[in-house]
């Protein structure tokens, strides 16, 4: 039996001001500081409250379906230089992605703080769906901000959120994607902070979000580590995940941080290619700067203006990244590499056809990365891939993409 300890204390902690090395902090208007302090206190108390832990673990097990299994992918592995690929099946969670882990934790915190209203941003719509779901379950009012471009390419998830009773607000400013949805959510929060909790969907944002969201997702790595040991009698040689803001990646990486033999490799969205300028690879091609409340690697121009990201994947289409990943990059404990739209879509199709698993396009970046890594490490290597979500939401995009390239429906 896998033991679930989503709020167990961790070894690598930020300092009291929320810095992982040079990265993190709170670059937000003073108006939000009281709410961030309140959240920090509520979270700190909840972590050491056995009732909170029991309630969260109960929901994760009985409602979300944890633990999620691991699945070996032998036919996919034939395309990976003979390395064995094992998938951590976050796609099988209720609502279809890892996002539910964090959302259930924050929804319970919202209740604990006595706030009746929740706001969230969403890119792919998976975080929005998870938040709408938790709000339906707990009777909270829910408003989700979503870039207009994303409401179109992830229309299925807009419908799901509305079915669940959430209000979905299309955001028409800036690049009309995830970055601008977060801006709008922050504006709402500044205005309604007395009654409202902002359920941020990734490990970015001001302290305490990066550490809190990470801790809620550590369950992924804690389970996977035990599952690997139980089934293979050893740890994997490498763990891979896709990087949007970095929540599914940090969730699976973190419990392996103190296993130096395990390589941790994150795959960013390279869009049309890092050298084209049309990409979302903040760690590969950005420089440290502030966005949405934290100092971290960022795509920005020579004047410190945020540069628009580009990716076929709405969930990775973000010019920033969580601060802990910046620190893991600088310290060398984790590596980050780019995967183009084309590479991700090839992996999307390959996993569907070889294993009968249609991944989210986000997760397909991690699969593509594992294929590369497998070819480098060769036969005998054991790779663990975080399959962060399922691809139902992406069928429209896939139809268009493959039509374009092959003329096949």
């Amino acid at each position: 039996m896998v033991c679930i300890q989503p709020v167990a204390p961790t070894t690598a902690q930020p300092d009291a001001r929320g810095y992982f090395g040079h990265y993190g902090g709170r670059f937000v208007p003073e108006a939000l500081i009281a709410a961030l302090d309140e959240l920090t206190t509520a979270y700190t108390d909840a972590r050491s409250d056995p009732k909170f832990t029991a309630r969260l673990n109960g929901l994760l097990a009985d409602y979300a379906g944890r633990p999620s299994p691991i699945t070996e992918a032998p036919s996919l592995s034939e395309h990976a230089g003979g390395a064995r690929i094992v998938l951590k099946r976050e796609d099988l969670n209720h609502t279809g992605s890892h996002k539910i882990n964090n959302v259930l934790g924050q929804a319970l915190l919202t209740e604990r703080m006595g706030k009746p209203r929740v706001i969230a941003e969403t890119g792919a719509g998976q975080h929005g769906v998870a938040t709408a779901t938790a709000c339906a379950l707990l009777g909270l009012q829910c408003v989700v901000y979503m870039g207009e471009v994303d409401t179109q390419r992830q229309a299925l998830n807009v419908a799901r959120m509305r079915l669940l009773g959430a209000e979905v607000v299309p955001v028409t400013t800036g690049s009309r994607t995830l970055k601008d949805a977060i801006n709008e959510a922050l504006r709402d929060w500044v205005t309604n902070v007395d009654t409202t909790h902002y359920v941020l969907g990734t490990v970015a944002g001001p302290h305490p979000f990066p550490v809190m969201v990470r801790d809620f997702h550590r369950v992924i790595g804690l389970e996977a580590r035990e599952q690997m040991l139980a089934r293979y009698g050893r740890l994997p040689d490498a763990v891979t995940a896709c990087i949007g803001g970095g929540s599914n990646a940090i969730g699976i990486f973190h419990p392996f941080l103190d296993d130096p033999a395990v390589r941790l490799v994150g795959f960013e969205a390279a869009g049309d290619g890092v050298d084209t300028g049309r990409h979302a690879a903040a760690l590969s091609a950005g420089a440290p700067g502030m966005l949405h409340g934290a100092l971290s690697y960022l795509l920005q121009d020579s004047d410190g203006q945020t540069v628009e990201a580009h990716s076929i994947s709405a969930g990775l289409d973000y010019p920033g990244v969580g601060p802990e990943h910046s620190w893991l990059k600088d310290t060398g404990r984790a590596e980050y590499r780019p995967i183009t739209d084309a590479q991700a879509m090839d992996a999307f199709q390959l996993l569907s056809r070889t294993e009968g698993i249609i991944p989210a396009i986000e997760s397909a970046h991690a699969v593509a990365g594992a294929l590369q890594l497998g070819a480098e490490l060769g036969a005998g290597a054991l790779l663990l891939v975080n399959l962060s979500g399922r691809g139902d939401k992406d069928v429209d995009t896939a139809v268009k993409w493959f039509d374009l390239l092959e003329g096949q429906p």
Partner: protein
Amino acid sequence: MTARLAPMFEACGAQQRAALIGYLPAGYPTVDDSRSLLYAMLDGGCDLVEVGVPYSDPVLDGPTIQAAADAALRGGVRLRDVLSVVESIAGAGGRAVVMTYWNPVHHYGVDAFARDLAAAGGLGVITPDLIPDEAQDWLAAARAHDLDRIFLVAPSSTDQRLAMTASVTRGFLYASSVMGVTGARDVVSGTASELVGRAREHAPGLPVGVGLGVRNGAQAAEVAAFADAVIVGSAFVTAAADGGPPAVRALAADLATGVRRPAPQPA
């Protein structure tokens, strides 16, 4: 050292009135036009202008200022243009501070920015998304280049944070009148006078300016009854868009009349 803005507050105090501070983003609608608009503001009766740095992700701004910043960025405004606008105003004898989100300054180099702003004749910086807790390098640079550092406080600020923020502020403390983003509002909220009262308890002698929502002379008079400065932003942007420098001059004149006849009760 005394605040660069101390003479302004002394002069206004001698006239027993609040100061009038107007905001417009540099580069809106073009760099040259923004110069003319800022001159019109001073001409109409503003004691100080806030020259805004247009930024891609202005989370404390409502739709009016967002749209102006977007237009300025599309027009290609650069940080060095902002400095040149400040230089023009100072050269013409006007007082200017810069209002900026922090990443452009961080990227430029905090000390280099302070140096170049001081050289351009700027008097200080308003920092909407930089709290004192994160401002070590800015405070050092501001001291080195003798610039005022104008931090924001909000109705949600605890007394402890008010005191801490006031203790590192120089020039004036910027009190947000409401919880929310910039944008003209019909009523000035009661939370503003309460916040100013709390600020005065913790920082006797430090001028307190009130912003967010003021759009006409009557509201300016209301705010002037309890604050040392009335700060107007979105209404100037709207005036600039609708009627250019003449409309901006007229609004400044209306507001300037307002700060000279403080009304204790809503008009």
